[in-house]
């Protein structure tokens, strides 16, 4: 088995696979991507899958557009569809505060050339048969927004990377990152095999800080529980492919799912997890299953004005997963000081599906010393100074970033 590479990427989720694809596209040399589990099998298969184009934070629209571009490129490269569902989105305002947010979003979208229009209550009702349109003051429709199966997208990045020469090693757990004189030397696997490379990219998602700790580095994020509920199928009420919604006044989003409705809700105090408690596979991790009903109980009253019968709606499934949240809700992409050759791409803040392609591109450009397509300063890993991601206080700061999130 090969022992020497130019770049090793740890993590076969959306961010690791997108980075591998972007590096391979740039002929970055011999690249190895490893994951302790199957590719696309962990947090990246538990996402809500929204590809919201319009963003109010600087640089994010460019990053999301890059993901859309990647999807098109990969479909062409592989000759297969990644099943992007262009359903459109509707952002709903029912208060002065959310109206201001919608106006800001509207301006950002228009500035970036994203089609958008305010639609009437009648049109809203037509597009969203389940909603009580009387509760809607303003509805901003963006017809080119889409959703995509996150596991399929992640596999698409991985397959495209492999086609361009990246070696994929699933079910291969990394024990540690090896350094020498503050330079990256490679990695050691759990069977003590050493694989050498001058560049290592830590894209291990929720587990990333466990690999950084022996190096004395803390990445400024922690895993925070994200979750959504899926109703029983009712094709007439929740027609497949109807627009997804973002409802800031209800701290909610919704999207269609083959005749059912996916409902994402954000509790007032989000739950952070100490990375030390993570299991090797998320199916063995206790996200606190009681939250399925306690959080729905807390959040349902806010959504009830739009979805009257939420109390009696049959809930067929519940999905929880870890989103890696950063105190300022910006991603973490770039070189990790003080180690030469150590990089990270993490801290998805619930946006890994929409932003993965762009995050991978920025990581690749920084690794290869190319001109970055967005300003990398705001994503710099060291921007908070020294942090201890294992401290409850820091984890709370990260959880608050999700609690205070405005969008979907």
């Amino acid at each position, binding site marked *: 088995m090969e022992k020497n590479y130019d770049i090793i990427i740890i993590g076969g989720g959306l961010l690791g696979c997108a980075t591998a694809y972007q590096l391979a596209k740039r002929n970055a040399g011999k690249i190895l991507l490893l994951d302790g589990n199957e590719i696309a099998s962990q947090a990246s298969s538990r996402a809500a899958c929204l590809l919201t184009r319009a963003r109010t934070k600087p640089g994010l629209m460019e990053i999301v557009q890059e993901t859309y571009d990647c999807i098109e490129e990969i479909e062409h490269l592989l000759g297969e569809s990644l099943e992007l569902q262009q359903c459109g989105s509707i952002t709903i305002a029912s208060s002065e505060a959310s109206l201001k947010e919608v106006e800001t979003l509207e301006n950002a979208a228009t500035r970036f050339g994203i089609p958008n229009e305010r639609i009437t209550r009648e049109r809203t009702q037509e597009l969203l048969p389940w909603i009580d349109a009387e509760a809607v003051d303003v509805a901003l429709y963006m017809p080119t927004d889409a959703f995509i199966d996150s596991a399929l997208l992640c596999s698409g990045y991985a397959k495209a990377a492999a086609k361009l020469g990246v070696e994929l090693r699933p079910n291969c757990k990394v024990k540690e990152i090896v350094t020498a004189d503050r330079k990256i030397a490679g990695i050691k696997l759990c069977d003590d095999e050493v694989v050498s490379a001058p560049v290592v990219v830590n894209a291990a998602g929720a587990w990333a800080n466990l690999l950084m700790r022996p190096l004395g580095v803390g990445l400024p994020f922690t895993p925070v529980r994200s979750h959504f509920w899926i*109703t*029983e199928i009712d094709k007439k009420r929740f027609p497949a492919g109807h627009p997804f919604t973002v409802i800031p006044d209800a701290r909610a989003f919704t999207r269609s799912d083959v005749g059912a409705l996916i409902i994402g809700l954000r509790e007032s105090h989000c739950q952070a997890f100490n990375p030390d408690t993570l299991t090797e596979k998320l*199916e*063995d991790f*206790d996200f606190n*299953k009681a939250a399925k*009903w306690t959080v*729905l*109980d807390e959040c*349902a009253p806010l959504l009830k004005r739009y979805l009257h019968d*939420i*109390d*009696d*709606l*049959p*809930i*067929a499934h519940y999905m929880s997963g870890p989103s890696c949240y950063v105190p300022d809700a910006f991603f973490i992409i770039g070189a990790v000081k003080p180690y030469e050759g150590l990089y990270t791409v993490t801290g998805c803040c619930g946006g890994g599906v929409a932003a993965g392609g762009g995050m991978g591109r920025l990581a690749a450009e920084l690794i290869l010393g190319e001109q970055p397509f967005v300003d990398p300063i705001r994503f710099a890993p060291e921007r908070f100074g020294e942090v201890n991601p294992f401290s409850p206080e820091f984890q709370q700061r990260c959880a608050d970033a999700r609690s205070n999130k405005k969008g979907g």
Partner: protein
Amino acid sequence: MKRYIVFLKQVPASTKVGIDPVTKTLKRSSALTQTNPDDLYALQAALDLSRATGAEVVAVSMGPASAEEVLREALQRGADRAILLSSPAFAGSDTWCTSLVLASAIRRIGEYDLLFFGRMAIDGDTAQVGPEVAGQLDIPQITCLSAIENVSADRICVSRRVGNLTQRMEVKTPCAVMVSRENGELASPTLSGWRRAQAQEITRWSETDLGLDRSLIGLYASPTKVVTTAVPQVTKNIRWLDGGGEVFAIIQSFVQPSC
């Protein structure tokens, strides 16, 4: 008033469950848990029938304090009341001792028409408890139930699967039925059901409440002795074939072995 009693078991949610090296029993506290899937279908069958007959549905579980979760789920899904059979004295009971405890609980509950069990639990895989309870109570039992077709004051007409055949029978009540996922579809739970369930009391009974002698129950009274456990080792002999000729020859050797 008619009464249906449904038995539900808390089982590990994952197949990665540790075995206690001393007792050889499952280390239940170490794993995420769920309600045994077949038991939910038993509950659904009881709830569906009760809508037609007006029967009271009583959910019963035997296990540690955490087994209250499965009873809350039963209440959320529509059970009228719930009873948790919990005591350190019950720990380690095999199917025989478990059936003894459940039969005692049924006697304490009083009159009943039907006992609903899941066909088997996904942790033990024995499918013995329901039939053993019927034996303890000396009542008829219907395994592999496929449908309850008719209910009268003292009888039910049911069909059950027997291999590829369906057997229809009339059985005197009270009796026990064993239900599995082939029996129907589960209704999804609701938030209002959860709220209702949170407000309900769960009755707790120990061996004292059931008038059971401690020497008859638990690990040491159980006639089943687990001497050891091992994960079966499955090996596959794989040979890569080069070219269609070799593939064709192998297929031909299966189709015409004498050639």
